[in-house]
Each structure stands twice: as structure tokens, then as C-alpha cells.
């Protein structure tokens, strides 16, 4: 790490500490009951809200590390959620159970895989403009996601479907604090936490992880070493599409029904995922922690209500978006991999 990057990190950390101190001081000054706001239930809900964002962020991070900016993750999430919802309904004949939820998530992953392959071919083989094509994918999702819902239910929103049950791990669930947060909640939360660690390990400690980083930082060197840059990028982009699709499916599995009005139930979570990995400085664990911050902002509304602070829902719902702008303003100048957005053509 260069001195410059180390300096950047110090500035970031100082800023983060500064914001926390200001938040605590403000809370004390306004006499807010912090203990009543940050409850175990709040952390549990925040983690569930953070899960789809974290999955999307980890995927997007891999793509960008490999040198391709997958800005289409929001679209993948919409397709993931819509596919999971419609599949769950169709395979169960209208009365889904727990097994159908898992099958729906699986179906959603497979459909996302197919879309991701096509998208990767357009980006890499046909050198599509990454920003415009990514935006296009969002619009395609905004159109065809609700379209699927209308075909199945004659409405942009689904009726109540099945949500995923909590998984209670015996013994571990009784551990104070950590028990209810990780071992008596949606199994997808634990899955995501494990995945974040694995993704971090894989990126930094395996040969393929190095290849991904080299494809984004110095593709010529990777090519010289005899590794096919294009193939590494395909793998990373397809992975990011699948992860975002999974994120959408998980969002649906936690919500238990599909909403297709407005910007759909995904409502910017894919974009927030991109910010989460920028905020996490391209580190999968950092990205997951950042996702938790946004998940917490998303769930703050219930907490404020329980302690009797009246803020209109409509405005509290905007906290995550305002949070994103704040984060980008303070941490905006992240050091992106140097070859992001450039197509690479081997000399051979």
C-alpha cells in the first residue's frame, strides 16, 4: 500500500470516528434514549435488511476489481426478486411453503446466471459502454420485473407469499447478544456473513483472487504471465450478476411478497450496494459492514417509533439515500482499480 493510500485511510478513519462522536454527542444533547434505540431486535432487523445489499456489494466489488464496472446490479436485483416471487407462486400452485422459498431462490440464481452471461458477453466481447448498458439493465428490470408480476397476478404487486423462517441453532442461540443476532434469525444472514469472510480470503489469499486484482490493475502483466484476462473478467462479471440476483431473491425471501410499484421493492438497494463496496474500500468484509450501516438506517424508523419520536415515515425512509450522499461526499475519492472501464485486447 502506498503512503498516499495509507494517508487516505487515516483520513477516512478519522472522519468515521468524528461522525460517531458527533452522533453520540448529539444524541446525548437531545437526550435520546440510545439504549432503547439500539436493541438486539434492531440489530437483528438491520442485519436482515443489510443482507441483500451486502451480497450485491460483494459481487459488484469482484467485477470492479477485475476491471469491469457492473453498474447493472440494481437491474439484476429486480430480476432476482421478480423471478423468485413468480417461481415461488407457480411451483407451489399459489400456496408456497418453506421448500418453495428455497427452490425459488435457486431458480432466481439460475435465471440471473443466464442474464449475467448475456450481459458479460455484451460488456466484454461487444465492448458495450459499461455505464449506459448498466443503466439499461436497470430500466429493463424496472419494466420487465413488474411485467412478470402482472402476467402472474394481474397486478404489479404479489399477494402475500412465504417468507423464510428463522433458523434456530441449538445451544448457540442461547449465547447472549450474539445468539439471537446470528443463530436465531434468517439463515441467509449467517450465510452472508460467512460468504463475506470467504470472499475476502479468496480475493487476497488465493491465486485466482490475485488474477482478479491483476485484471483490474495491470491486465498487460497478467496477460504476459499467460493468464487469459478476458476469461477472468467474464468470471467476475458473471459472479457479480449472480450475486445481485441472489441479493434480490434474498430481499424477497425476507419480505415475503413482491412489490413492483414505483422503483419496485429493490428501490435503489443495488445502487446502495455499489456505494457499500466503495465505502468498504473494495474489501468484502468492509462492504458487508457498510451494508449494515445502510441496513440500520433503513430500520431506524421502527426504533424511533418505539421510543416515541414522531418523524414521518416518508421522510425517515429517505435516511439511507441521504446516508449514501454523505458517505460519497466524505469518502468520495476512493482509489478505483486503474484499468476499470477499459476493454482489454490481447496482442495475440
Amino acid at each position, binding site marked *: 500500500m502506498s503512503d498516499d493510500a495509507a494517508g487516505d485511510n487515516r483520513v477516512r478513519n478519522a472522519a468515521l470516528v468524528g461522525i460517531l462522536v458527533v452522533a453520540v454527542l448529539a444524541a446525548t444533547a437531545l437526550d435520546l434514549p440510545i439504549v432503547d434505540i439500539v436493541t438486539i431486535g434492531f440489530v437483528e432487523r438491520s442485519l436482515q435488511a443489510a443482507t441483500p445489499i451486502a451480497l450485491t456489494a460483494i459481487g459488484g466489488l469482484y467485477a470492479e476489481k477485475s476491471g469491469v464496472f457492473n453498474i447493472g446490479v440494481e437491474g439484476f436485483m429486480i430480476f432476482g426478486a421478480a423471478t423468485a416471487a413468480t417461481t415461488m407462486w407457480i411451483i407451489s400452485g399459489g400456496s408456497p411453503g418453506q421448500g418453495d422459498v428455497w427452490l425459488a431462490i435457486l431458480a432466481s440464481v439460475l435465471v440471473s446466471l443466464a442474464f449475467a452471461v448475456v450481459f458479460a458477453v455484451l460488456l466484454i466481447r461487444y465492448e458495450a459502454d459499461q455505464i449506459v*448498458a448498466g443503466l439499461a439493465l436497470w430500466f429493463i428490470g424496472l419494466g420487465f420485473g413488474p411485467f412478470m408480476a402482472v402476467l402472474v397476478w394481474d397486478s404489479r404487486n404479489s399477494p402475500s407469499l412465504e417468507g423464510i423462517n428463522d433458523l434456530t441453532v441449538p445451544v448457540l442461540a442461547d449465547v447472549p447478544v450474539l445468539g439471537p443476532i446470528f443463530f436465531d434469525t434468517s439463515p441467509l444472514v449467517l450465510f452472508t456473513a460467512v460468504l463475506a469472510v470467504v470472499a475476502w480470503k479468496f480475493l487476497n489469499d488465493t491465486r485466482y483472487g490475485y488474477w482478479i486484482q491483476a485484471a483490474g490493475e495491470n491486465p498487460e502483466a497478467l496477460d504476459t504471465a499467460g493468464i487469459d484476462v478476458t476469461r477472468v473478467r467474464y468470471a467476475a462479471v458473471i459472479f457479480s450478476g449472480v450475486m445481485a440476483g441472489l441479493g434480490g431473491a434474498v430481499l424477497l425471501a425476507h419480505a415475503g411478497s413482491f412489490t413492483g410499484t414505483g422503483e419496485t421493492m429493490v428501490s*435503489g438497494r443495488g445502487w446502495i450496494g455499489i456505494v457499500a463496496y466503495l465505502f468498504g474500500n473494495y474489501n468484502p468484509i468492509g462492504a458487508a459492514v457498510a451494508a449494515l450501516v445502510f441496513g440500520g438506517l433503513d430500520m431506524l424508523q421502527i426504533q424511533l417509533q418505539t421510543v416515541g419520536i414522531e418523524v414521518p415515515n416518508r421522510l425517515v425512509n429517505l435516511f439511507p439515500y*441521504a446516508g449514501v450522499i454523505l458517505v460519497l461526499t466524505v469518502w468520495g475519492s476512493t482509489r478505483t482499480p486503474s484499468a476499470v472501464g477499459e476493454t482489454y485486447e490481447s496482442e495475440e
Partner: protein
Amino acid sequence: MLRASVIERLAIATASTALALLIGVTIVAAAGYDPVQFITSMLQGALGGQSAVARTLRFSTLFILTGVAVAVAFRAGVFNIGVQGQFVVGGFMTIMSIVWTAPLLPEGAVGGVGLILIGFVAGAGSGGLYGALPGALKAYADANVIITTIMLNFIATGVVGWLVQNPFRGEGNAAPNTERIPEYVSFPSILFDSSGFSIVGLAIALAVVAVIYVVMERSRFGYDMVTSGHQESAATYSGVDAKRTVVSTMTLSGMVAGIAGAVFAIMIQGYYTDPSGIGTYGFDAIAVSLLAANNPLGIIPAGLLFGGLESAGSHIGIYTDVPVQLIDGVIGLVILFVAVPELFRMAAVRTGLGGEKR
């Protein structure tokens, strides 16, 4: 795409639209609807009769204005995805400024024109400010414009939605709407006797196109904007302040979006309502601008095409069972294909229609 000739761009735009529509029709057929009937009702919805044409032109007016707003920014290399938010803020401020100042001015035609002017100034001003904010964040904090503008869209919709529901809801309104602007604050009906469309609105849109064309292509300011977007180092070398240029680009883009909001507010609605239900003109505008290769003059045919699509969409929404969301998806496909000129170049080479081999 920058190096492509005008004919190539035109071919890409046509091929993208045709391919997207073809996929749309295929999906319609695959979903079990009658594709021939679908195409007939699309055409009928866009062009069948005076009221259909008026509706098409009404949508086209908005697409031309929002399209130009997008083009200003994209041309300068600034990805302003926030035209929708700037459109909403501009439209809302137009209505509120007219409602607030109406008691101070005389009633009738003179007062009407005065209020329309006030509305336009408020719309353009507030839209410009709402665009300047992400511009400044980009220039001075390096915050990604794509993401900040998308977030500001959500915030604009949420805050205006709350404002019209609560503090600014018109007295005695059951629906979450602001007060109505006075009857005499409206564009005259010339040629078309249709509520919601006046040729004056279209004329304003075309005038804005002309002004922006001159600014972008013929002025020093436009030249600096475009060069700093595409050759930042060259622009800096010739003494252009890149940071200030980003802010002014975003301000100009937001102002045009605000004017679009003002036209929408005065010509179509006459009051303001929850923006989550008013249509996504600012998003579709991205497709309009890209289809026109971000050229202000190209926006006119692209805006007419999208006006026709949208008008056809509202027709099939009423008269057929085909879900109208299909049109949104087709618009997304158009953008996707426009982003991949290489696809068409290769196809052209393969089929012997032209295009250079590399």
C-alpha cells in the same frame, strides 16, 4: 461512438429501436397475446386520430425537454441521472410559486402570463439548484454523479411527496394534492382542442432545443463544456476550470429539467401531486438522449418517437390486456442496444451491409 458518422449513428438508432420493438413483440406473442392486434393498437394509440396525435405530442413535448436536459450533461461527460428529481422539484416549485403569488397579481390574461413567467423562473431556478448540488459534490468532493443523482431522485420524490401530503396539501383536498393554480394560468388551445396539450408547450420545447443547440455548438461556454468532458487535460491546459464547468453543466441541465417540470405542471396538471405517480419522464429521457447521440437537434425525432411509444403504451393499457410495463422494458432494451454499437458493426460486416473490418 464519438467517432461514428451521422449515418452510422442513425443506422444504430434505427436498428436499436427496431430490435427492441421486435423483442417486445416476441415477448407479447410468447406471453400468449395476439401480436398483430398488439401492433395495430400501438399504431392506433400513437397516431390514430386527433386526440391520439395530441397525446403523442404532449408526451413528446416532455421527452424533448427532459431529453435535452440529459443531453446537455451527457455531452459534457457528466452522467446526470437526476433529471427526474430536477423535473419534480422544478414542477413543484412552479406550482407553489404560482399559488403563492397569484393573489398579488391581477386576474385574467395579463396576470396569467405574468404568473406563467414567475412559474417558469421558479421551475428553472429550483431545478438548476437541485442539479447544481450533485455537480458541486462531484467537483469538490469527487462524489460519483451517477449515484448521488439517483439518490437525489429518491429524495426529491420522497420529500415532495411528503410536502404535498402534509404542509402544502390544498385546503379540503381528499387526495394528496396541492392547491390548483387559477384557471387563467394556462396555455391557450391552438390547433388542438385537447386538455393537457397545447402547441405553445411544444413551441417552448423547440425553442429550448434551439437555445441549447446554439449554446452547445456555437458558444465558448459550450465548447469548454464539451472539451472538458472528453479531454479534461486539454481543457485544463487551455485554461478551463474543470470543476466550475461540472457545476455549471449540472446547473444548466437541471434548469432545462426544471423547465420541463414547469411545462408539465402548467400544461398538464395544474396542481402538484405525489411524484411517485406522475411518470418517469426524466428516466426515459436518458433513452431519448442516447438515441439522439446526445445531439440537441437529434432529440426532436427521438422525442417524437418516444412520445409515440408512451402514447401507444397508455392506449394499450386501456384497450388491451397486454401489461403496459412492457413498454418500459422495451425502452430499456433500446438503451441497451444503443450502448453496444459494436454489435451492429459486427452484424453489418457479417451481412455485407457495410461497416469496416478491423
